[in-house]
């Protein structure tokens, strides 16, 4: 008995919508098995992990807060992956973006006016983009594998942040803790009450970005160029598109968005720099991008789904006394299921029993 793949004559439209749903369903089943294995009721576990956190307004607020950076980063990564540029260093671009964007409130603490806020966001985008252009430049000039270089730079950027907050940028009033001075009032994003939940500027920015990218990908030449160069670089070059320029574009865009996301996390949740500013948003966003089928609207939904697993991890810790680390396992499993379920788009899967299989060969 074995699995056999039969190629479909064309992509199944039904399956391209259904495959993420299948993947999420399989992940829920997997989670249920894990809960049962740990001696909990699977249904109770699934309830606490996937649903209970979003039954309160506070939970919804947390969900949006966690989903926002994931969505923003994943949007940029989707452009990279669609155009066959494998940037997996978003975590580092997030970090460098946040450092560059923090220059105004840390180095010029007396420069307090409303201009600081947009200035910080722009600087963060520039910083993230420039940092992302390093692997892009190495790829276009030397043909160096961008997967490995972009990832190596993540380790470097985290160490750099560590040095900054322990060394030159350490706050003199911080009792020797590795933190910078607190950002002033115009360097933080304040939450406002929107129908009972408190949101800051980052959530609407994410929504605008989703809308813009959806339009760009659907109905502009740039969107066409991204897809053509990803599917067939040769065909793209006949159409006059440049692979080099696309690599720069995709890396700069994803770096800028990662920097923006990192800066907004710092400005809304932390209010200063410290050795760790992200719980791995840059890596988790890779899962979000694939779960969303590299489609902007899909990424919006996927971001909310994945963000709920962060909350679920905390929820099972308090209600079932299980480890919150289960969340990362479930995220990893989900990505496996997503990739496996994608097979259904291009192939029909048949279970072939021994005799039947031999008959087919004859």
């Amino acid at each position, binding site marked *: 008995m074995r699995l056999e793949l039969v190629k479909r004559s064309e992509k199944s439209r039904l399956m391209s919508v259904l495959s993420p749903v299948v993947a999420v369903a399989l992940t829920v089943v997997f989670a249920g098995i894990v809960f049962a294995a740990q001696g909990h009721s699977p249904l109770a576990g699934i309830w606490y992990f996937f649903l209970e956190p979003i039954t309160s307004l506070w939970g919804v607020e947390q969900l949006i807060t966690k989903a926002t950076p994931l969505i923003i980063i994943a949007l940029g990564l989707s452009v990279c992956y669609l155009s066959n540029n494998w940037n997996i260093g978003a975590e580092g671009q997030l970090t460098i973006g946040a450092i560059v964007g923090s220059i105004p409130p840390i180095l010029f603490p007396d420069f307090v006016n409303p201009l600081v806020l947009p200035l910080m966001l722009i600087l963060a985008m520039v910083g993230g983009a420039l940092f992302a252009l390093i692997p892009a430049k190495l790829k276009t000039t030397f043909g160096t594998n961008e997967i490995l*270089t972009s990832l*190596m*730079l993540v380790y470097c950027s985290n160490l750099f942040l560590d040095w900054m907050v322990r060394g030159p940028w350490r706050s003199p009033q911080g009792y020797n803790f590795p933190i910078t001075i607190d950002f002033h009032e115009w360097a933080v994003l304040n939450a406002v009450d929107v129908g009972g939940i408190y949101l800051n500027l980052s959530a609407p920015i994410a929504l605008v970005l989703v809308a813009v990218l959806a339009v760009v990908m659907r109905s502009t030449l740039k969107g066409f160029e991204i897809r053509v160069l990803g599917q067939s670089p040769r065909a793209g070059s006949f159409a006059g598109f440049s692979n080099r320029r696309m690599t720069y574009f995709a890396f700069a865009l994803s770096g800028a968005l990662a920097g923006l996301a990192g800066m907004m996390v710092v400005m809304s949740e932390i209010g200063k720099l410290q050795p760790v500013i992200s719980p791995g948003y840059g890596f988790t966003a890779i899962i979000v991008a694939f779960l969303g089928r590299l489609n902007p609207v899909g990424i919006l939904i996927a971001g909310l789904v994945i963000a709920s697993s962060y909350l679920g991890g905390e929820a099972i810790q308090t209600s079932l006394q299980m480890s919150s680390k289960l969340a*990362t396992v479930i995220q990893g499993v989900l990505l496996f299921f997503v990739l496996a379920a994608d097979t259904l788009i291009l192939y029909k899967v048949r279970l072939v029993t021994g005799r039947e299989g031999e008959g087919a060969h004859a």
Partner: protein
Amino acid sequence: MLEAIILTIITAATPLLLAAVGELVVEKSGVLNLGVEGMMVMGAVAGFAVTVSTGSPLLGIVGGAVAGVIVSLLFAFVTLTLVANQVASGLALTLFGLGLSGLMGESFVGQPGIKLASLDIPGLTTLPFVGKVLFGQDILVYLSFAAVFGVSWFLNRTRAGLILRAVGDNHASAHALGYSVIGVRYLAVMFGGAMAGLGGAYLSVAYTPLWVENMTAGRGWIALALVVFASWMPWRAAIGAYLFGAVTVLQFHAQALGIGFPSQFLAMLPYLATVIVLVAISGNRRATLFNTPSSLGKPFVPDR
């Protein structure tokens, strides 16, 4: 002093070498498994867990290899049977391995481990200078060298090695000749998993007998870079691993000597060295292209 430096280089290089030799075989069969980091960290946690619960570091090493094989099968099923994207699946394996190892290892954090014993041959190990370097290592160090020679011999001198290379260079022809492309690749991926698992177990059983979350710290990725550096030749992977071991050790000795340089920048050295080496290697495109398995990373669906 020199002897101490050489000894630390060996311990830093061995996990890289084990994982790199395994991945080299995987890539020679035409599969790009970017999940080395995930398999290594699973090997590390399983190696530590088995060592602590059985009291035997040797069983721990076996446990690490088995854990590496088990998670590699997940990757193999998704990419080989279901022809999913290999790059994305490798990332999935890494994220999954880092998550699962953190979960499994939670109860082991802070527990003391048992260090793998080193060889001790009366008369030889006590020889000045060469004694400890040549005759005083643990079994995994010797195994890593055996793997270099074994894989080199297997790939270049055996029929099975020829079939594996054929599958990696032209899977359609290998299939037409009647070889099971998918079967060969499954075995190769499992070998890669076992070697990465051993590399991880080395970290938690021999290098520092402790479990720390994410203790592989990017070594799986460096091993991947080593395969490119080695142009898919095992003995060059050994040179590469020892160069990286030297860079890592340089860092500690510079710190010990009190060179007034921030420790964070020294800690960046292995990662920066990886980038620089990759650039240097990719500059020499002809040699790289000549050795790159032609079917690397390409999915294969058998037709009739």
